[in-house]
């Protein structure tokens, strides 16, 4: 929930309570239940204030809601890949916002080099190649 949504929500709530209280006072003054009918309709300014405050509050609620996530797999996966880079900052931010725990690539555990419980074959081969290039096999002549 950012600053704009908070401002909208507070302003909307203030205007809404003012409008509702005004209409309550109006109803007390003219007591529509006794002096039958619509002789004294709600003044235009109260109606306008009410509608504007409702619209402002709606905008605030929509802005305060968490962002939508793309449903298409490829868009979503690309987003995950790019946010992998600053995943730590993002994870802290999302935890603050109380959002879901799942951040980053869910298949990261299966990717190169980070498969726990498996020998890192490529890493080993690279190290061996390095060792050979450096003439590590010096025993043979």
């Amino acid at each position, binding site marked *: 929930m950012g600053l704009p949504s908070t401002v909208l929500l507070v302003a909307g709530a203030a205007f*809404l309570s003012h*409008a*509702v209280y005004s*209409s*309550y006072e109006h*109803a007390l003054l003219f007591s*529509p*239940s006794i002096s039958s009918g619509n002789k004294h309709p*709600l003044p235009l300014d109260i*109606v306008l204030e*009410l*509608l504007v405050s*409702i*619209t402002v*509050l*709606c*905008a605030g*609620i*929509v*802005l305060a*809601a*968490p*962002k*939508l*996530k*793309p*449903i*298409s*797999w*490829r*868009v*979503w996966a690309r987003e995950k890949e790019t946010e992998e880079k600053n995943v730590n900052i993002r994870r802290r931010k999302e935890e603050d916002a109380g959002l*879901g725990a*799942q951040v980053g690539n869910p298949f990261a555990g299966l990717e190169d080099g980070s498969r726990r419980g498996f020998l890192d074959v490529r890493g080993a081969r690279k190290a061996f190649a390095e060792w050979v290039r450096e003439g590590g096999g010096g025993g043979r002549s």
Partner: protein
Amino acid sequence: MIDERELAINPIVQDSVMHNAKTLSNIRSLTASLFGVAAGTLGLESYPGFLFYFAGTLVVSLFVFALRAEARPKEFFYRPMMDLWAGDVVGGLSGFVLTWTLFYGLVRA
């Protein structure tokens, strides 16, 4: 089936679909009670009240469309017509009627 094939080529993420539906449903239930406050204070009765609610949900859908879906609802909802514009409209109706009657009674009893 053409639909199944389309899904095999362009798979969708179930998690995101559920997240979006939950977000929209939250927005709907919050705004529905707000519309109830407005309708009760304005003193609407019977059909005009329900029309007010449906007009309000349309406005909220527009807000979601512009502010959250970035004017590309196809990217966030599987069927934009059903899931965004008509999504969860009936679900908020009970909350709307609740606050509508409450504020009608409070303001012009």
